[in-house]
Every structure is written in C-alpha cells, then in structure tokens.
C-alpha cells in the first residue's frame, strides 16, 4: 500500500500535464457524449443535428491537431501513448477520412432511410475515430489492444448497421467472428510478450532487452500472433479473406471508411510496433532465424499479387475495389518496409492520396448504384452517355488508382517507388528489388481490371436505356475530390510541405 504513495502524486501531475496534448481526443469524447444526448432527446425535431454535431466535433479536433502539428515527440500518460509529428499527420488523415465518411453518410440514401436513424452511427463513428487516434498514438500493448478492439467492435457495428439487409448482417458476422479470432490471437501474443519482458510499454528499454534475452522462436511466435491482429486490420494477405465479403456486404459509405480509416491507423500502429523491434531488423539480430525483411516482403508481394490478380475476375465494383485496396496495402507496405523517414513520408503522402481516391471512387460507385441501381460492372454499360461527367470523374479516379499521370496517384506511386529505390540503395536487399518489380507488374495488372469500368461505360452501349435519377450532392463532392487529385498532381508541394 504505502510503497505506492510516492508514485501517485507524480503520475497525477503527469496525467494533468498530458491532458494539454490530449485535447483533440477530449473534444471527440465530449462530442461523442453530445451526439448520444442529441440523438436521444433532440433528434426528433431536426434530423441532421447529429450530423452537424459530429462534423463540428471532427472539424474542431482536426483543427486542434493541425495547430499542434509541429510538436516534438512526447510520451503521455506515463508512456501509455506517444505523440509526435508523424502521429499527428496520421490523425489528420483519419480526420479527413471520417469527415468524408459522414458527408458520404449524409447523402447516402439507404442509410438515411433506415427507420432507426443515423444518430447511433455518428456516435459509433466518433468512438471509432477516438479508437483510431489512440491506435495511432499508442505506445503500450494495453493501449494497442484496447484501441484495436475499440475500432474493430465499432466497425462490426457499422457494417451491420442497417440490419434490414441480409448481406449486411452476414458481412457483419463474418467480420465480427474473424476479427474476434484475430484479436484473441493478438491478445495471446501480447500475454506472451508481457511474460517474456515484464513490461507493456514498447519504448521501455527492458522490453527490447527482454526480447533479446530469449530464443527467437519464442518472441517470434509472440510477435507473429500480435502481427496477426494488426495484419487483420490492414487486410494483408493471408489475413485478407474477410475484406472482399465485408466490403461487398457493408453499406457503401462504411466500406469506403473501412478501406481508409482503419488502414491508416493500422499502418501507424505497425510502425509503432515494429519501431520497438528495430534492433532485430538492422541491428545485431538481423541474422536471426526470424527474418523481418523476408516476412514483410513476402506479405507485401503476396498482397500485391493476390489483390490485383483477384480483382481481375470481379464483377461487383465494390468487391473489385476491395481487392484493389488489398493490392494497394501491399504496395504501401513497400514504403513502410524501407523504414526510413522518407519512406514514411512517401507512405503518408500515398495514404493521403489514397483516402481521396478511394472515397471518391466509392462515392461515385454509390452514386451510380443509387441512380441506376447497378453495382455490377455489366450494369455500367453505356453510362458514359447518360452520366458523362460522373463517369469521367470515375475514369480519372481509376487512372489515379492505377498510378498514371496526370493524377496525384502517379506522384504518390512515384514517391513510394523512390523510397523503395532509396532503401534498395542502402540495403541492396533482393527482397526489395522483388517488391519493386512486383509493384511495377501489379500496376499493369491493375490497369487490366480498372479499365473494365470505362470499357463498359464508354466503349459499350447499354441494351436498355439506363434510367437515371437526378444527381445528388455526392456527385459534386466526388468531383471536387477528383479535381483535387489533378491539382495535387500539378502542385504536390501543397500537401508535401506539411510532411
């Protein structure tokens, strides 16, 4: 009892001091509560109150973290979380994703028409958002597990949100069970790690020393089990099986969000986690049986291959985009693999563009689904005539996803390749070369299926004249994003100077 007394005052001061850097999250929490209250009592008379509140909250949080952009790296709450420039960048990306998400929800018919209303969705989103920002910052196994669970459970709820749809509930169940298994494995891995090192704090020197003290099959097993959890969130091959089904089943806005937000946070988490293992990668133990480079490389290459090749056969656009996002994840892993500062910069830039691309893509897909009732590629026949502007936007987005000029997707891809090249120059590891070549080939492959959409939209004529409802604001949002893609190609500095 008594031996705890001295610690108390110190840690309380620490907590108080930390609160200053934790404001954005606090705002989110407040917003979370407000939304719940609003949903319970005020939502009757004005429908969009929750939406406005959430938007406001996210904006405030975003602005706050933007203002604190250049803070030196600092660890908060007794090493529970760690805040630095990179983390803030990730948080900003997540913020962008969430904002786009709620805008998406706002103009998505199916979600707006659910009799249960969208209030819960907004509160869940805020909670997930909180979880994501914790994920980004967490420097402690407990925080990692907590935030991952938070995000996962929130995601299950989002996927199954409007429960009138059988596909959604199926997707939700698959997602939930799959995720639960993965997180259980992660938990077990964490317990082993804790057992071997005696600390939950990744940055604690005793952590790494403990790891180094034991045979590498032991910590290898523990670590792989933890990585399973993270890889599940990133939907890397072979932990990707859920994503096509879930992406197809979930409401389109949710799919869009799942393909962006959690991925971003997942990468941040991966970086934080692997940071602790740096000595094994380039330090003394790099020659240990457990070879990070080959593992990461293999996973990245597999993801690129499975993702892109799997997409070739898809007929459902959302499913195709799911596969392609698997491929993209593998590609991003290439930037992370380098584990250099420039690599992270390239990664963040790529993600920023990726958020824009994916959101735009899903918005357009959803728009078309709502207006013409098709979410299959065959259904796109002849849409080029009837919804020309929208389809042109779609084409630009797809070009950007492929990574061709004149779109920001090219710049992003280019930066990632540069980072990989640089890493190759440093390490000269054949794995990297293999990854680079796979990346190049997968670009060609990706064109193969991306082109199917313009192929149907422009090159083919619909047998029956497509009946199109009038455009919704989604169109204009997505076109704005498309425009952004081109502008960022010509003036990438606007974005890069933040990095």
């Amino acid at each position, binding site marked *: 009892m008594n031996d705890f007394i001295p610690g108390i005052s110190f840690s309380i001061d620490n907590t108080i001091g930390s609160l200053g850097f934790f404001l954005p999250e606090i705002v989110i929490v407040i917003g979370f509560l407000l939304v719940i209250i609003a949903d319970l009592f005020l939502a009757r008379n004005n429908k969009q109150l929750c939406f406005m509140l959430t938007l406001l909250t996210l904006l405030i949080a975003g602005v706050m973290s933007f203002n604190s952009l250049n803070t030196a790296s600092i660890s908060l709450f007794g090493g529970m979380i760690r805040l630095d420039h990179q983390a803030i960048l990730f948080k900003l990306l997540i913020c962008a994703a969430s904002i786009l998400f709620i805008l998406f929800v706002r103009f998505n018919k199916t979600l707006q028409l659910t009799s249960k209303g969208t209030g819960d969705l907004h509160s869940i989103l805020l909670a997930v958002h909180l979880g994501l920002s914790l994920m980004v910052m967490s420097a402690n196994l407990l925080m990692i597990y907590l935030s991952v669970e938070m995000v996962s459970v929130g995601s299950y709820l989002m996927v199954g949100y409007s429960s009138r749809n059988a596909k959604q509930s199926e997707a939700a169940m698959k997602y939930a069970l799959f995720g639960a298994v993965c997180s259980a494995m992660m938990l077990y891995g964490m317990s082993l790690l804790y057992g071997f090192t005696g600390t939950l704090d990744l940055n604690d020197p005793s952590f790494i020393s403990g790891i180094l003290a034991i045979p590498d099959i032991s910590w290898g097993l523990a670590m792989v089990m933890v990585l399973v959890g993270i890889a599940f969130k990133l939907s890397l091959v072979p932990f990707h099986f859920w994503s096509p089904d879930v992406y197809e089943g979930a409401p389109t806005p949710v799919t869009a969000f799942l393909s962006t937000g959690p991925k971003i946070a997942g990468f941040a988490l991966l970086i934080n986690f692997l940071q602790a293992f740096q000595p094994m990668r380039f330090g003394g133990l790099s020659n240990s049986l457990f070879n990070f480079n080959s593992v990461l490389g293999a996973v990245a290459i597999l993801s690129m*291959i499975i993702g892109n090749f799997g997409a070739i056969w898809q007929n459902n656009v959302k499913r195709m985009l799911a596969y392609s996002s698997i491929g993209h994840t593998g590609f991003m892993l290439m930037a992370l693999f380098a584990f250099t500062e420039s690599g992270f910069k390239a990664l963040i830039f790529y993600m920023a563009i990726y958020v824009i691309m994916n959101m735009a893509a899903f918005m357009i897909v959803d728009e078309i689904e709502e207006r013409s009732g098709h979410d299959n590629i065959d259904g796109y026949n002849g849409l080029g005539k009837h919804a020309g502007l929208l389809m042109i936007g779609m084409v630009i987005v797809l070009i950007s996803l492929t990574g061709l000029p004149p779109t920001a997707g090219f710049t992003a891809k280019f930066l990632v390749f540069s980072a990989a090249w640089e890493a190759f120059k440093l390490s000269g590891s054949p794995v990297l070369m293999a990854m680079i070549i796979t990346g190049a080939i997968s670009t060609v492959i990706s064109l193969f299926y991306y082109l199917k959409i313009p192929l149907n939209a422009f090159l083919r004529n619909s047998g029956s004249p497509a009946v199109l409802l009038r455009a919704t604001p989604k169109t204009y949002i997505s076109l704005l994003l498309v425009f952004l893609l081109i502008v960022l190609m010509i003036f990438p500095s606007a974005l890069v100077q933040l990095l």
Partner: protein
Amino acid sequence: METLNFSDSTLCIMSILMIVMPLLSFSAVLIRRTSGGNFAVFNISISFIISILIFLTVWNKNIVHEQLTWFSVGERQFTAGILLNNLSVLMMVLVSGISTLVHIYSLSYMKGDANINKYWAYLGLFCFSMLGLVISDSLLLIYLFWELVGFSSYLLIGFWFTKPAASQAAKKAFIMNRIGDIGFLCGIMIIYSQFQTLDIVKLFGEGGLVSSARIDDGLWISTTSQMPAIWLSIAGLALFTGAIAKSAQFPLHTWLPDAMEGPTSVSSLIHAATMVAAGVFLLGRVYPILDHFTLNVITAIGIITAFMAATIALTQNDIKRILAYSTISQLGFMIAAMGIGAYGESMFHLATHAFFKCLLFLAAGAVIHQLHHFKEQHQLDFDHQDIRRMGGLRKQMPVAFITMCIAAVSLAGLPFSSGYLSKDALLITSFEWAEGFHGVKKAVPYVLVLSSWMTVFYISRLIFKVFLGKSRFEGIHDPPSPMNRTLMVLAFCSIFILFSFNPFSYENSWLVQGFQDAGVLRLDPLHIVVPLAVNLVSVAIIYCAYIIYVRKDAKVFSDESFFYRFSNRAWYLNEAYTFLFTRPAESVSHFSYQFDKRVVDGIINFLGSVIRILSSISDWVDRRIVDGAINSVAELAKSIGNLSRKFQTGHLQHYLITMLTVVIAFFILNYFL
C-alpha cells in the same frame, strides 16, 4: 565537222534545259487534262536539237563537269552535277533522237487511245529520267534516275492496265529491276564506305580514287579506309547485277519478252533502243572498278545471254517476241564486249543497234497496227502479232518492207549496213582478245559468231514469213505518213554512212575513235578473215532460210514438166537443209526456249512463290506464336486470378483455416526445416 563553242556553264544550262523539256510534257498532264501530242513532240525535239548542239561542242573535247552541293550529311558533302563526256553526249543524242522519232511515230500509232495524254506524260517522264541518267555525275543521281527509268517503264508497260497480262508484266518488270537496283545500291554502299564519295569524276576519272586504291595481302586499301579484297569483286558484281536486270541479261531477262505487252512504240523506244542499253552504259561509267574476276563473269553472262536468246528467237512466232529475244541477244553481245574490254566497240554496237532495232520494232509496229485495223474492219479474229498468220505483205506495205529489210540486213551484219561495222568490230576484237588466252576463253569468239549466224537465220525467217509468200490480206496499205517517215529516217540511220565513210572498216568510224582503245593488240589477218567468213556463211544461211520458208510453198505453183529437176533438186536440197540445219536448230531452239520458260523463268516464279510461302508462314507465326505468346500471358494472369478466387469460398471457417495454415507453415519453414 565544224566546231561550236559554248562555255561550260552554258552547256550545263543547255543540258538542264534539255532534261527539263520532256518533264514539261509530263507536268502538262497535271495542269490541264488534255495535252496534245504535238506539245510533247515539240518538247522532245527541242531537247534533241539542244543535245545535237551539246554533242557537237563536247565530242572529243575536254570533259565538262559542273556540280554544286546538293545536301550534306554530317560533314560529308553530296554533290549533284552534270558530266558531259563522249559517253554521255553520245547517249544523249541517241536517246533524244530516237525518242523524237518515236514521239512522232506515236502521233499516229497511238491516235484515238482513251488515255493518250497519259501516254505522252509517261513518255515525257521516261525521256526526262533517261536523259538525266545519261548526264548525271554522281552514282546517287544515276541511281535516282535509274529507278525513275524503271518506274516510267513500269507505267508504260502497264499502260493498258485493264489487261491483266499488262499489269502483270509491268509488275514483273519492276520487281526484277528492283533486284538489280538492290545490287546497284549495294555497290553504291560499298563504294561509299570505301571512298566516302559518290562523285563519278572523283571516283573513276583519270587518277581517280578507284585507280589509286590498291590491293595488298588480301586488303583493298583506299586513301581513307580499307576492307577485304573480296569486296572489290563484290562491288563490281553488285553493280553488274544492276546492269543484268536493266539490260535483261541471263538470268534476269525474262521480264523483257513479257514487257512486249506495252504499246509497240514503247517497246521500240524503251525495251529496244534506250533503256535496256542503260546497263551497258552503267558498265561503261563504272568500268575502272571492274576487276578481272568480275570482267570474266560479265563476259560469261554476255555470251550465254547472246547465245540462248538467239536460239530462242529461232522458233518464236510472235513478231514482237522474236524481236525482244533478238534484243536480249544483241545486248548480250554488248555486255560480252564490255567483259572482254572492248569498251568502244560495245558502245559502237549499242549505238547502231539502237537505230536498227528501233526500226525493226517500229516497222513491226506498223504491220501490227495495220493488221489490227484490218481485223477490226472485217471483224476477223486472229492474233495479229503471229507471223504464221502473215505473209506477202511486201506488196501492200512496200515502205515497211524496204525499211525492215534494211534493218534486218543491219542486224544480220551484212556489208554497207551500220550493223556490219559494229558487229564485225565486236567479233574481230573478241578474236583478238581470245588470242591472249588458252582454254575455255578461246571459245568466246566462236560462240559469238555462232549466235550471230543464228541471228541471221531468225531475222531472215521473220522477213520471209511476214513479207514474202502469198498475200492473205486484201486492202492493207502502208501506215499513215508520220509512221512512214520515221521508218525512213531510221532506215537511213541504219546504213553505214552515218557512222563511217568506209563501209568496210569500223576502225575509222568516228564513234570508235571517240573511245579510248581497250588495248588488245591488233591482228591484221583477222580484220580480213573474220568479216569474210562470217558474211559468206550468213549469206548461205539467208539463202537456205529463203528456201525453207519461201520456196517450199513457191514449189506448189511450179510447172511440173518444166521445173521438175530444179524442184527435185530443190527438194533434195530442202531435205538436206532440213536435215542438216533446221532440225538441230529447231530442237536446240525448242530446248533452250523450254529451258528458258521452265527453268530460268521458273526459278524466278519459284522464288516468288517461295517468298509467298515464307510470308504466309511468318504471318502464321505472327498470329499464333508472337501474338499468341502475348495473349497467353494475359490468360495466365487471369488464371492466377482465378486460382486466388478458389479460396474465397464465402465460408468463414475456410478463411480461418487457410490463414492459420499459412501462419503455421511459415513457422515450420522458418524453424523446423
């Protein structure tokens, strides 16, 4: 002859003018649809006059050579210019003169043809390119005009393009010429890479680069660069290939008989007098680069062509084809002469041949023309070019008969004709040349003599069959006056007077003197023996031809009682001659004709079909293999995608199983293997 004096620059301007005039009649078509023949005739005659003036100025005087930079590649300057020396001015006069005559002739011969103005245009184009070929001073220019000549001949052969045979023949002519052109091009490449210039004067002039280049230990060394000696011979042969194709030498001669599908006037101008001579002219231009080996090859080809063409001509029945083969064989004479180094004699024969062969064609053309009209008047249907259907025309067409006889005499090389001079010149020189050698080369002059005898036979056969014997056509008369006049002019040109005032000695012909002697030592006895021998035999041959082709049917009318013995003897004679001469001759002729059709032309066609087969093979390869590979790559990609789909069963536990299996497999591989 009196001498005119023009400054070099004036001469160049004149010669340019001379080239351009015919081009005008070509371009006239582009400007206004109908350009009358008179315009063309006017142009060509202008350039003829100019060429005469130039000739008189330049002949046997110093060479005129003016040039200016055409373009430059890197530092290399490529010049274009005009080279006037004996060779070029002679050809110039020949070409423009004969073209003028043919133009005039065509006025009436081609009258009423639908595309007459096109005809004039093409003719103009031909004259332009032929004259350009003659006077240009760099191999590049020569090659340029060389192909243009081929092109215009393509146009003219295919003039009646609606006749499949015509367009076929045109294509054949162009492509076989292309083969030669490629040889020419290769020659140019070799020369250029050896000497870095294509200027003829720099290359072949006195003390030119070619003569200064030397050969030691297997290397052909010029001032600038060197290559293996073999390339010297290759260069010569390559250039000669060009000559072979253009001058229809064995084995690339088969296009010429087919080319007779064109209008007769065209055949006379292009395929008898001028264009086909271009090969000989080319050899004359590049003579210094031809080494011994090449010269031997040239001689061999020459005599082979001369002999086999002559044998073929023996039994042809199409009048134009007979003349075509005779042209081939005469060209063989010239080429062979070039080969044995009888440079001047060859040119001499070229000149004389140009006139009398042109005349032969035009006269034949007159006959055909008239028969054609006759046919159309009487709605008859027969091949109006087949000599077996003709006969007895000497009454109806005296002019044609006389002139053609003169030409025939000249071709046969009987005294007082121009042919006599040139052909004897050839034969004598060949004998003189053969003196220097032993073995197979000794045979050369004898082969030449033999072929010239055959020439005598087939030409007399032609004359007899066409003009003598019983007349079959009533109401046929001489062609309209323009044609007649041309025939007469040409007839005048085919007698000795134009070339030498001494009808028996070619050596004091101004033309031969105009070219430096090939340097074989002179053997006086030959100058007596050869002409005598050759001509006596020739006369005998004519006589027996007469007996074979004329007296046979004359005999039918002979009075039984009175002329019995004569006829009887004649009959014996007949038999004897038939046995001794005709049979073998005919069999040889048939054989060589079949050889020509089946083997030589066969090989050409075979090559053609081989190319076709190759092309279809490569097409198959392209579709199936090359493209197939690409498509199969795409298929592979798809199948990989399909494989990855197999795991996406939509079955949760399968997913988990696969995933965990991978994890375990990873550990097993990593730690326990």
